[in-house]
């Protein structure tokens, strides 16, 4: 990863002059971002709970009548029960699997397409760049939420489709980000040097340019995960999200109709979405500071 090493201002961050790898430095700087570290801990817990949901859930999330209807949170039912006497705690554990994976897959799709398109546009420039950027502009010219709704209306609303749709509608901003990086990096002296010793295009991109765009890509991906979770919950709230098993957004939507006397059905899933998105944003912030101190 030697090529990825930016100018390290060792003295500025109080480092010893000893050689350290890029990622050690990143970790060192990231660790000092208190909120980001707390966020990592919280998310690790959330993801553990989501994965272990079948082991941890006291009841089947779909089983009706395991308790009284609309029981407020108690020791027996930590998140209360719903209209059909289902255990909300179990439903939230299973919902975590949906809500937490939507973010990653959607952000992954968005960033992958965006990086490829942006890299091609930025590296080749000229007419290729023109065409690709015009396509991005067209997609960005439709208000994102409208575009999402259109695609959701047309295709079957499965969990996978929702993830893909969020990814497919948000990649242009990623493409523009990566393109911008490529445009400036390809003019760098070390790229010129690589070219002059006969390196081929693919090698230049993979070895010299891409590693240097990693910082903004990683930060943007992290923020996109949070954004995608928000978007999915928004779709669910409108009643067009993932329903089986219900995501946190869907649980909140269900709770909304009876919130006069069962507010916990709204506050618990809502708070969980809020904390998750907040955690991803803080991690993104921490990564930005850690990966590129100059970006601050």
């Amino acid at each position, binding site marked *: 990863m030697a090529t990825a090493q930016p100018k390290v201002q060792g003295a500025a961050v109080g480092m010893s002059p000893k050689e350290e790898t890029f990622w050690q430095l990143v970790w060192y700087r990231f660790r000092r971002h208190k909120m980001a570290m707390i966020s990592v801990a919280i998310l690790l817990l959330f993801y553990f709970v989501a994965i272990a949901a079948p082991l941890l859930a006291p009841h089947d999330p779909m089983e009706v009548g395991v308790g009284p209807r609309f029981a407020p949170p108690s020791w027996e039912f930590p998140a209360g029960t719903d209209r059909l006497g289902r255990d909300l705690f179990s439903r939230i554990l299973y919902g975590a699997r949906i809500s937490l994976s939507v973010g990653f897959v959607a952000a992954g799709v968005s960033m992958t397409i965006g990086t490829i398109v942006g890299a091609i546009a930025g590296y080749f420039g000229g007419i290729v760049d023109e065409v690709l950027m*015009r*396509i991005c*502009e*067209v*997609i960005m*010219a*439709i*208000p*994102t*939420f*409208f*575009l999402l*709704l*259109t*695609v*959701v*209306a*047309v*295709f*079957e609303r499965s969990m996978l489709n929702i993830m893909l749709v969020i990814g497919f509608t948000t990649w242009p901003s990623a493409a523009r980000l990566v393109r911008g990086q490529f445009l400036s990096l390809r003019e760098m002296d070390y790229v010129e040097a690589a070219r002059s010793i006969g390196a081929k295009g693919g090698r230049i991109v993979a070895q010299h340019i891409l590693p240097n765009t990693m910082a903004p890509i990683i930060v943007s991906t992290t923020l996109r995960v*949070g954004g995608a979770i*928000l978007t999915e*919950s*928004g779709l669910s*709230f*409108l*009643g*067009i999200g993932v329903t089986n098993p219900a995501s946190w*957004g869907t649980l*909140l939507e269900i709770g*909304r109709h009876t*919130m*006069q006397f069962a*507010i916990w059905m*709204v*506050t618990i899933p*809502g708070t969980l*979405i*809020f*904390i998750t*998105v*907040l955690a991803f*944003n*803080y991690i993104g*912030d921490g990564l930005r500071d850690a990966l590129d101190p100059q970006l601050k």
Partner: protein
Amino acid sequence: MGRYIIGRLVQSLFLLIGVSMLTFAIIQMAPGGFAQMVGENPDATAEDTARLTALWGLDDHIHVQYLRWATQMVQGNFGNSLAQGRPIAQMIGERLPATIFLNIIGLLLIYVIALPIGIYSAVKQYSKFDHTMTFLAFLGQAMPAFFFAMLLIYYVGMQVAGIPLAGMATIGVEWGEVPFMTWLADRSRYLIMPLTVIVFGGLAGLVRFMRASMLDVIHQDYVRTARAKGLSERVVVFKHTVRNALLPIVTSLGFAFSGLLGGSVVIESIFAWPGVGLLAIQAIFTRDYPVIMAFNLIGSIMLVIGMLVADILYVVVDPRIKY
């Protein structure tokens, strides 16, 4: 300047053509095709589907269909809603003012509140105020608008009398029929809830943006020069810093408006605000494709106009850019 505007107009036109193609393509990708989707009705026979196919010319080549649709669009004929059978232009026309009304007021409030906070935060960087605001902005950005709306309804709307939770006006309180103050008070009361949610949702991002933009400028050499030659802090901040820091904010206006437009789908459906967002949701549920297509076009026309205005404003406010 005139040339620049004409150039941008032409560019916007091509953008809209692209949008119309994309929208058309998405609908075409629908599994089973248009006629079959309409014919999801279990009573529809193969004969019905065939008749609809012929009626709508669905056997024609795709480009013929697109051109036919696009020509109608250009003529302002958005077709009829499948669900309601009424002209779409009329349906949207009825709803658009309510949405624009809500969003323009929202946008104004967001800018009026966020800019001073962002400026002050940057001027007093790392102060208590700055830390508090940055923290609040972080919270605001992570808060789902609908969740905030639910909390607001439960903890404020349901506790305080006199704040309507749904709709836009009391029936019978119409412009010109009641005293102006009565009308204004009524409209304002209905605005409280949706407007609070919109403003809350938009503040965080803009505060952070404004703060970042200010910090960029504050560290410029010409600001140091201004300080060095002994100008008062007031002049340095307002004349040399704020005016330059506002430039990137101006360009964000177009996107800000379209973001609000998309967000108003959620807000309108929560507060039963009779705008286009509510119509959009109904169209999604009834799979009213012509309405959905019209929406995308109108949404992007508004976005494109927003960006155009922002770009022109940019040239106006920044004398360094000449065309």
